[in-house]
């Protein structure tokens, strides 16, 4: 099935089996292996990418469903010589160990800060109606869709706090 995907600002014309997920399209058909496959069932968050600016699990989206949407992957956030502030903060705070969940964590964290800016509450927000303060607990709850088996969680929270603080 012919599909055009817009990824990191450029268009890609693909002919895909409708069964191909966005994640497999990125990894196997476009060579964008920064998005990782940890479970393929939306249970680990390693495949997190942004679709129209929102974080989603690329493993639970069919590529053909993404036509006309803007997909941003870790490769679109920054490159080794030109890292985004979130990517730099992860290096500085050792917010990873093996690195496999890391692109998903960073995509997730980047979008999560936008959600918080829009005033979205979380399950741990005391008050649903006021603007939530991005405490460590709030960051942890909002990042709980990204498993890290190396368990760099406290360092991940440090990195995100750092970026959130400097953007404030």
């Amino acid at each position, binding site marked *: 099935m012919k599909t055009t995907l817009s990824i990191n600002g450029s268009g890609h014309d693909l002919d895909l089996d*409708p*069964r191909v997920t966005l994640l497999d399209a990125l990894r196997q058909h476009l060579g964008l292996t920064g998005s990782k496959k940890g479970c393929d069932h939306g249970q680990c968050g390693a495949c997190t990418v942004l679709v129209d600016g929102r974080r*989603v*699990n690329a493993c639970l*989206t069919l590529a*053909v469903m993404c036509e006309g949407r803007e997909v941003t992957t870790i490769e679109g956030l920054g490159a080794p010589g030109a890292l985004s502030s979130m990517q730099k903060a992860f290096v500085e705070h050792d917010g990873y160990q093996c690195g496999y969940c890391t692109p998903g964590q960073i995509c997730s964290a980047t979008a999560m800060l936008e959600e918080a800016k829009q005033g*979205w509450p979380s*399950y741990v927000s005391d008050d649903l109606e006021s603007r939530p303060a991005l405490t460590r607990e709030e960051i942890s709850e909002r990042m709980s*869709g990204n498993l890290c088996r190396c368990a760099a969680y406290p360092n991940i929270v440090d990195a995100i706090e750092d970026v959130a603080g400097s953007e404030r």
Partner: protein
Amino acid sequence: MKSFDYLRAGSTGEATGAGGAATRFIAGGTNLLDLMKLEVMTPDKLVDINRLDLKAIEETEDGGLRVGALVTNSDLAADPRVRRDYAVLSRALLSGATGQLRNMATTGGNLLQRTRCSYFYDTAMPCNKREPGSGCQAIGGYNRIHAILGASDSCIATHPSDMAVAMRALGARVEIEGTDGTRRTQDLGDFYRLPSDTPQVENALGEAELITAVILPAPVTSRQAYRKVRDRASYAFALVSVAAVVAVEEGKIARADLAFGGVAHAPWRNEAVEAILVGEAPSDALFDRAADTLLEKAKGQGSNDFKIPLLRRTLKATLRELTAEAAR
């Protein structure tokens, strides 16, 4: 995942027109693709309904809200009217899944989530829900996450949704469009089915019918809570959950709309429990009587026996919390 034809619907009529026994609508896809990868669900055709105009949250004439079927869980939870007037729903949504999944999952899709029963998920296991007549392997197996209320000899699965539990407490109605283009609404309580001897039939949705909206009645003066007990601090399905919309007037309970998750094949509501509470002054003894009625026919399956005392305690604590100021 079996091969399928993919069709993008431009209108609800086009969607229902393409429907049928072997067709599934796909919106968020978070549960459908999960199950299709494992060959638990094997549709011949997927109809992508994401382009349909069902994304609005609108006020109804009677002061309630009409939530389009394609409103994402994130958008619904963050909507200022929901946060203000239907806090139980916002909390329930935020307690479910993860930020990523809530950005994908839709209101209609969430209602139609399949059970998380491990035996349903594994095609090597008999399962009456997946393969009617094959048997239930959860009975006599590892059934820690299974039902204590309303189960049958055919199936002891639970419904995994948090959102639907809150909606059940709020008295929500489901709006359904039939193949002839007409829309009807149905109380959420009537929408779901208990397993009986046909656990494969989970709701009242006919073949090719499409959920177009959920309608919330006008808000009521109340205190609301969604309390979810789970195995880890976040990102786990409910062991038990309680959705409560409670009002106390002049020291007496004036309203106690209660629904329960993690305990049955559908969000559970028992009006006899509410009748015990309404009109009475809140007390531990009263809450115990309510819990007695709720749990009168509760039956554990072995690994899930703990849910019986857990549900009692969680219900009581929730009632205590919501009636606390009045009791003082």
